[in-house]
């Protein structure tokens, strides 16, 4: 069985290789080939899953050792895979949602002449993401980690003739690199501390290392997670990443890649458990991002950017849960999976809307679309209900548990975290209702564009609606299924460990308050966007709104401090290199030149004067010799 693990990765990798190197010959079948290989990977995943279900909880982990990657004295890095319940969950999510999005893209990218390449990149992403979750050591995980970064770079910048897309791609890669720096430092620390960076030995011996080291490793891992999962302070790339084609936003920037940070923290649970300080920072980062993303999401008029803010906020929930330790890991992953369903569904819905609206993204120019796109409306609506945590749907089950766990943290911290998560739930309900109302309800607000083309909203083709329907099913039922008999908890417990949290207020009260804040959020949004017509030109808005539209000024800060400062630094260094470092050398050369110019005058060409210098020199030599003798 374990020999199948490599095939999981090999299938999409083969697809990427074929599609990217195959040339124009494959243009006509490229998308089908890519989709089939993604599906093949999913099928292998299901086979492995079925096999795993047949075994007892503790014996489920599979290992496959392919070959030694970097065999250097004292440094063993292997290409080896580990498939346990946690990895399995991700494999199914990645290949499942991935396949659906491949299918969706067949329709979405139909008119793009570079569709083959798009599928090549998508396959590359799948392979890298699978490598990330299947790796059995941190260095190989790093390989996958940067691999998904590359795929994300290529896909965000897929329409690279647009300067904004190229810039966004570059920004995403760079910000991620800052996070990657954290991961590489963490690996180096592990190496010097434990002499290895394989999951097993490192995670088993966390207790023996000094507190400072463990905290350092934890914080560096958190930095990495912040980069990849768009958490404060490295969140600024996610909004811009929406420049990529919408299926990319759904797959990479909602369902899978951005959740890699949560995977990393959960996987490294033993490290964080051993360091309460690091855990505290994780929780704070999660809580801040949760609110940050939600506030940004409330102000954006671009449908994809509003959803991006929401993604950031939901991942904040997961990071927060992961920071709570064993009471939270399982729910972080559970929310991750349900979020994978409903957020992918929402993005695909947004893509479907854009498809029908000539790629317009401004929600103020939508309105009343439910009549024109019934399937999109229903699937998007179900996703909407799921994300706001409508009782019974997926999001409810997972988010409620996280809020409970936040309260269960205990003490003042518990109350603060509980309050933050509840506030986040209210904001989620608000901004998602806002998106829903602005897009599908009210009067139509679109107008002909500059060339007089009026959009003709229409339902998308089958290849696009079917994945949306499947994801909508997941959004509705997944959470309930996972919570039935605590099946998800039992599934993951052997890997991540689990403790029942004991919130200071009863679970029922938590649920009740969740529902109450949900209603408040929905109500507020309805009062603002449902009762009154939505203005096509955005009103000026309060100070907070304006700041939130600009991503709470984070980009401006980056621009002034990092971009401008960096430009000045590099320019002045170029100057210094040219004048100072080079100048010293050129100056030496010039002074020699001047000296020789003066000496040159001695060469007047008269044989007599040369003879004088010869005789003079000889005389001096003789005199010197005699003098030395005398002394």
């Amino acid at each position, binding site marked *: 069985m374990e020999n199948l693990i490599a095939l999981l990765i090999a299938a999409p990798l083969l697809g990427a290789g074929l599609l990217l190197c195959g040339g124009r010959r494959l243009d006509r079948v490229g998308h089908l080939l890519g989709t089939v290989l993604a599906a093949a990977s999913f099928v292998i995943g299901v086979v492995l899953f079925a096999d795993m279900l047949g075994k007892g909880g503790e014996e489920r982990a599979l290992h496959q050792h392919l070959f030694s990657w970097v065999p250097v004295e004292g440094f063993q890095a292997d290409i080896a895979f580990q498939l346990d319940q946690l990895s399995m969950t991700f494999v199914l999510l990645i290949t499942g949602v991935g396949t659906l999005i491949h299918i969706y893209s067949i329709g979405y990218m139909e008119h793009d002449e570079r569709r083959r390449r798009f599928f090549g990149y998508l396959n590359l992403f799948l392979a890298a993401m699978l490598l990330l979750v299947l790796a059995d050591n941190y260095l190989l995980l790093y390989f996958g980690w940067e691999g998904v970064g590359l795929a994300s770079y290529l896909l965000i910048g897929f329409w690279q003739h647009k300067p904004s897309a190229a810039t966004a791609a570059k920004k995403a*890669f760079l910000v991620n690199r800052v996070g990657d720096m954290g991961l590489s430092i963490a690996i180096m620390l592990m190496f010097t501390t*434990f002499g290895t960076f394989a999951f097993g030995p490192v995670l088993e011996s966390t207790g023996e290392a000094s507190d400072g080291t463990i905290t350092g490793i934890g914080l560096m891992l958190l930095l990495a997670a912040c980069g990849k999962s768009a958490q404060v302070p490295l969140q600024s790339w996610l909004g811009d990443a929406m420049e990529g084609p919408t299926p990319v936003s759904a797959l990479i920037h909602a369902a899978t890649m951005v959740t890699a940070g949560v995977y990393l923290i959960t996987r490294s649970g033993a490290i964080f458990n051993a360091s309460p300080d690091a855990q505290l920072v994780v929780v704070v980062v999660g809580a801040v991002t949760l609110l940050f993303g939600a506030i940004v999401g409330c102000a954006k008029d671009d449908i994809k950017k509003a959803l991006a803010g929401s993604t950031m906020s939901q991942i904040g929930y997961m990071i927060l849960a992961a920071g709570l330790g064993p009471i939270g890991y399982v729910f972080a992953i559970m929310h991750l999976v349900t979020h994978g369903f409903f957020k992918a569904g929402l993005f695909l819905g947004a893509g479907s809307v854009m498809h029908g609206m000539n790629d317009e993204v401004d929600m103020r120019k939508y309105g009343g679309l439910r009549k024109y796109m019934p399937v999109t409306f229903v699937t998007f609506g179900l996703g909407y209900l799921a994300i706001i945590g409508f009782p019974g749907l997926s999001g409810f089950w997972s988010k409620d548990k996280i809020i409970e766990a936040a309260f269960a943290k205990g003490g003042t911290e518990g109350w603060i975290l509980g309050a933050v998560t509840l506030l986040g739930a209210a904001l989620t309900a608000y901004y998602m209702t806002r998106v829903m109302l602005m897009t599908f309800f009210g009067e139509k607000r679109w107008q002909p564009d500059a060339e007089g083309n009026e959009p003709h909203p229409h339902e998308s083709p089958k290849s696009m609606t079917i994945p949306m329907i499947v994801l909508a099913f997941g959004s509705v039922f997944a959470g309930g299924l996972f919570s039935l008999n605590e099946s998800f908890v039992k599934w993951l417990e052997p890997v991540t460990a689990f403790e029942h949290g004991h919130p200071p207020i009863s679970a029922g009260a938590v649920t009740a308050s969740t529902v109450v804040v949900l209603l408040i959020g929905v109500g507020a949004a309805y009062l603002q966007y449902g009762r009154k017509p939505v203005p096509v030109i955005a009103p000026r808005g309060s100070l907070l709104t304006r700041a939130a539209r600009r991503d709470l000024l984070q980009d401006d800060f980056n621009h002034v401090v990092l971009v401008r400062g960096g430009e000045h630094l590099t320019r002045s260094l170029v100057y210094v290199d040219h004048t100072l470092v080079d100048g010293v050398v050129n100056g030496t050369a010039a002074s020699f030149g001047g000296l020789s110019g003066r000496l040159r005058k001695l060469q007047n060409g008269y044989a007599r004067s040369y003879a004088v210098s010869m005789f003079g020199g000889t005389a001096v030599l003789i005199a010197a010799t005699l003098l030395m003798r005398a002394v």
Partner: protein
Amino acid sequence: MSFPLLTATAAVPAIGAIVTAAVPAARRTGAKWIALAFSLATLVLAAIALVRFEPGGDRYQLTESHAWISDFGVRYELGVDGIGVALMALTALLIPFIILAGWHDADPLETKSSRWRPTQGFFALILMVEAMVILSFEATDVFLFYILFEAMLIPVYFLIGGFGDRAHAGGDEAGATQRSYAAVKFLLYNLAGGLIMLAAVIGLFVQAGTFSLAEIAEARANGTLDMSTGMERWLFLGFFFAFAVKAPLWPVHTWLPNAMGEATAPVAVLITAVVDKVGTFAMLRFCLQLFPEASKWATPVVLVLALISIVYGALLAVGQRDIKRLIAYASISHFGFIIMGIFAMTSQGQSGATLYMINHGISTAALLLVAGFLISRRGSRLISDYGGVQKVAPVLAGTFLIGGLATLSLPGLAPFVSEFLVLVGTFSVYPVIGIIATVGIVLAALYVLVLYQRTMTGPVNESVRSMPDLKLRELAVVTPLIALLLFLGVYPKPLTDIVNPAVEHTMSDVQKTDPKPEVEAAP
């Protein structure tokens, strides 16, 4: 007596150079094919040497020894350890690609008379450089090495000064001026380094009474070598200065951007990927072996200089407007990594540095040769003259991106392995330096992606609209290099197997052991 394989690897390109130079003016294309054939023959010989080399065997293998200038104890002594054989193979591997990439770079201009034979000269000089570089990787006699170290300046000087990049902003006249400036600068810097090294070489002979590496090492082991601490340090500095200029290390780096900017792309590859490696190789072989104590004494300063090189080179690369100068500064940053790995004196650092030399050679060759193809199409080296190339020449853009990704050390491509090893090796003994050096990987992403964005993406620049995509000859250059980058990125074991024993020898020379991990992890 067995077949002198090592001599042959150097003799074949040397003979090739003579034959190529002798081809009549009219048979220009024939000269190119002859040069290519000789470089391929060298590659075959290098491959045989690589196969015959036994990783677990003696330290120096395939040795040859003949008396040369017996009055001064100078011998013609050759032998390779794992590092030498790997670098020799790299050189032999890259030269055919350099020749193929520079196929039309030295075609005579029509204005010159028919007896003008620049093409023959160009390829003959390249082969000459190859012969000298290969022999310098094999020399185990300090004096022989010194001669080669200096002599290779001459052909490189003519390659820079005589065959410049025709894509010059200021026209031919300004091009010629800049070119001769760059060539003279290159020569002066390296001669100055070489002169100081000569003094140190003589000093070493006075102290040790021999030039033979093996004999000096033996004398050191027996304790018969009586060298005062001060003297060892001075001699070390003399050697190190010369190698630092050639490598190049901050602050003696400024000749490289000029030389690489003005030379044609293949010659720039020759300089940075092949000739400069002699400098870093020599640090490993001569500085560490001959003067272990002084090397340890100098380590902190060298590491700081290397760190400055890494960050400074990367920052300057970000600020460049000229594609080739940008790559030159990126190389300075990478040389910083190599030197850092050498002087960290851990197994990982040294293995990493050796792998880095090879991987940097391949990745720079890939990036720079594609950049050369790009520049030759548009006739400009300025980044701002490009834009949207991806749209008109997707294969060119794709290969350029892969070369760039290798330069920024993306996992899966060969340079990642070596860069990470260097970082880990440094971090385990000097954590602060290791952490600051990781800033280099963020900056690398910055300069590579900015370069890619400005040249390849965005709206199509009018001047590149009719740019053709890569031709068959160009693909034949790039594809094998990229394949090699991918292969060594995932499976570097063949290389590490060869390199590791040599690294162990060096580690025992400097009497250093790797630091033990804080916690003995469960196996």
